[in-house]
């Protein structure tokens, strides 16, 4: 798209913003985790005195094993107190939620403060774009989806057994869509939400992992990537112009059944558009695709109408 010419202004803007920010590099400071004024560290052995059962479960988790047996820094060496803060005041008065850092609804700390505790270690990798992401912006807490204190799920320390159960706590309609006749293999356990979405934020809208919706789809459907000799413009721009990825009542995850999905953009005269009877070749089986199979793009010199 004459890329560099058009990108001049945005690149300049980016540079203008980036340079002064980089200048602040030496003054950087992360959002600090909450503190417990007046409290001191007592060591995790003290915690076991009252929390022996939960400690035993926690030390079976990956995080527990790292903190207990292979700490990589001073923070991790504090084990329980790395997340829950210094516990001396909690020991004196365990009932007061302000005396230590807690996670969940009964915490004295705000959600942002609770999340800041996790972000001491987890602000990189897949969490790079967490700040101001859809979930962070709507005050979703790390603890809404993850349970650090025991292994509930096989991976990722979810609060539920499966990822889909976690996501469907809020995205109930998506869970219902997965029950449609036309669906990807989610409910068979071969796909999960995080195959396409990163719940911790991405540079792409809708938490899509790749740089565009289509690039996301090409991960499993690389044959549709092309580029093709004869491109179908609406297909090149967005697979979701025609498909509903979460499940559909129509074959091939189509939003609307053929031929209507095609007719929404094509009212030609060559084979006149009319509401054909369902028992005609314009409607039955694959409808338009009975003759135009190459609708995702054709590489045939005779493929201008996607017949070949």
């Amino acid at each position, binding site marked *: *798209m004459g*890329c560099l010419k058009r990108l001049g202004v945005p690149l300049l*803007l980016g540079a203008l913003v980036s340079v002064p*920010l980089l200048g602040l*590099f030496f003054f950087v*400071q*992360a*959002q600090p985790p909450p503190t417990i004024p007046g409290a001191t560290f007592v060591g995790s052995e003290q915690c076991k005195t009252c929390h022996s059962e939960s400690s035993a479960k926690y030390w079976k988790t990956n995080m527990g*094993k790292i903190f207990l*047996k*292979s700490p990589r820094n001073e923070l991790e060496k504090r084990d329980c107190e790395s997340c829950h803060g210094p516990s001396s005041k909690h020991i004196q008065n365990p009932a007061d939620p302000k005396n230590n850092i807690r996670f969940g609804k009964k915490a004295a700390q705000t959600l942002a403060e609770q999340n800041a505790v996790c972000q001491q270690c*987890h*602000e*990189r990798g897949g969490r790079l774009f967490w*700040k101001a992401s859809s979930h962070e*912006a*709507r005050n979703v807490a790390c603890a809404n989806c993850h349970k650090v204190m025991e292994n509930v799920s096989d991976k990722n320390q979810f609060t539920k057994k499966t990822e889909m159960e976690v996501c469907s706590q809020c995205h*109930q*309609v998506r869970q*219902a869509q997965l*029950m449609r*006749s036309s669906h990807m*293999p989610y409910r068979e356990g*071969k796909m999960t939400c995080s195959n396409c979405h990163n719940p911790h934020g991405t540079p*792409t*809208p809708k938490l899509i992992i790749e740089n*565009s919706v289509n690039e996301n789809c090409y991960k499993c459907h*690389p044959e549709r990537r*092309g*580029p*093709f*000799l*004869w491109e179908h413009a609406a297909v*090149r721009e967005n697979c979701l112009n025609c498909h509903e990825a979460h499940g559909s*009542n129509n*074959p091939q995850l189509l939003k609307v059944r053929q031929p*209507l999905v095609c*007719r*929404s*953009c094509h*009212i*030609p*005269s060559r*084979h*006149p558009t*009319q*509401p054909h*009877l*369902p*028992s005609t*070749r314009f*409607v039955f*089986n694959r409808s338009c695709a*009975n003759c135009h*199979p190459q609708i995702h793009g054709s*590489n*045939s*010199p005779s*493929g*201008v109408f996607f017949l070949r």
Partner: protein
Amino acid sequence: MRKGIGLVILIVSFLLSASIFSPTGKAMAQTKLFGLNANGDFDVGVRGLFGDRSSSKFNEYRDVHSGLYLDRFFLELNNPAETYFFNFKGENFIRDDQRYSAEVGRYGQYQLQVQWDQIPHLFSTTGRTLFIKQGRETFNLPDIIQTTIQAAAAADRPATLRNFLNGASDIDLQLRRDKATLGIRGTPTPEWDLRFVYSNEREKGSRPIGTSFSFGSQNELPEPIDYRTHTVGVSAEYGKSDKWVLKLSYDASLFNNEAETLIWDNPLRIADAAGSPARGLMPLYPDNQAHNITLSGAINLAPHTRFTATLSRGWMLQDENFLPFTINSAVAAPGLARNSLEGKIQTFLMNYLLTSRILPRLTLTGRYRLYDLDNRSRSILWPGHSVADTNFVVEPERNVPFEYLKQNGGVEASLELMRQLFWKIGWEWEGWHRRFREVKDSNEHTVKTAFDITPTNWLLFRTSYGHSWRNARKYDTNATEEAMSGEESLNLPLLRKFDEVDRGRDKVEFLAQFTPLSNLTFSSTFSLLNDDFDASYGFKSNNNNTVSFNITYAPTSRLTLFGGYTREDYFYKMTSRYRPVVAGVTVDDPANDWRARVRDLVHTFDVGLNGILLQDKLDLDVTYSISSARTSTRTIGTTGGAAAGEPVDYPSLINRLHQLLVSFNYHIKKDLTTRLQYRLEKLRERDYATDIMSPWMGLFEAGSRTSTYMGATMRGFEGHTIAGVLTYKF
């Protein structure tokens, strides 16, 4: 049989090994294996399946059969100091949907993972065809069929073809993805995170594809699928969590299609003739590659400010040799202008985000994103094209490399009005710049507001509203055709394509979570989306609303009840026109307008319980769900008979899936459980477009009498499964 023997050996091995894994001494002692700490579990069982399970839908993406099965085996080993680990997980052993993964490494330092995953996809179990596959990509017919039909009088051909089709053979319409993945991750110091991933996926099988020689001569075939895709990802990240992070990554995907061409016989002809070829020729998906280099970074700035940026450059490449215009030797087609496309698309992404809590209760966020799809593929002037191998039409036309630039920007303010009451207000912009499409430039603005309220720790509300308006500066109906051939579009000039045209959008979302008692949780969501397209013809509107409820209640410590309901309503409106060509002139008469109303109404309901019948001994789990979807399509408009566009109300499409699971779980010991399970899966599927399919469709339509299909249907099923399962944890 070999699978069965293998499975028996595996299960016996696991059962025998249970005694090895069994902890000695105290009940809670750590299980040891070769001096290593071991834990894990496995599920083995035997099941019987009953009912009508012949539909492809029953095992669409899975492989469930009667007999012995090993659903899961998980083993984790740690050295006594618990600094190193090894784990293995297997699912669906010795079945088409099996998956195995193994990981080894040191906690927090490095790990290596290997995985094998198979995903079957069964399209239909009723497919039949006369075509015989030869080699990878050729479908031949016995000469007698073509000879007989060609020799028959035109009026007799349908009956002759029908007779042959009565002898069509069953055809396998399924494919399977086999994917091997190797992943390595290392964090040699807390600052570094290095990752490498390689995967090799094979997709092999066949799926139905439509081909044609003319309107009246369609041939449905099993498209040969033989794909191989290699993907590689390498990334290096350096930074300090509390300060800044920089990440550089490279990803590549190499797609190779081993069946790149489809050649098939024409049942109606044995010898090539102008207007009626003996064979058809079609390229299947060409080999292609994609590469991407991405640089991402973030810095935390005092106070409570974070800036993230991403720059990403990508390439999509395709340079497969073209096939000739036609395989029909009786058609004089010119040589190719070029041998290949030299297809190249360059993408560029940049994304900047700055968010800052400038006041204790006020957070401001600004963002800008640009995605440029720069299509540098050759634009080739072609002298014409062959229409389905029947002829060569001299009609100079040029392939156009569609491309676009999409930009997004926005600002957002989040204000904590009082503790746990957040108000957000924001503005977003999306700008498109396209080449060769009807709308060159469009801008969409959105104003939005949201409230997140947690008045008490047992109540949460999240609600948002957004209003958008998209303005397309100019709609040029002929933009694409002018670039291709310099001619006018064949489309109705008044048509406006929904993805480009002016649009008004209203979007409402609401979520409530309510936990009034520790044993009662209730949640509900509501959403509404109204799209109103400024179009006289084409898609005119899209109105969706959904509502859902979920409740969990535990009246006693021994009983938990749960249930949920979701109602989805999707309603689309479009307007079209019947435009016949009379004496070479297109008749554009508003009296031939017709409208379509499509409505998807879906109810999903689930209910269940988890109960303890005998403390520490016997549990009961019951879940039942039903998803009932109905699509109704009505057309309203002109009269005068079907040929002139008579309105047709299509029969409703119905999909109704019932699932019931009843499971009695008897705990023999703390680590040993037996389960007796009953599962009902019942799908009722009514689809007017596929239910009637058979290899010969001449019974339904005169125009299909000389076509061949495969009769590939996807009907409903009713499957009953009774299983006995043994779960052992160690």
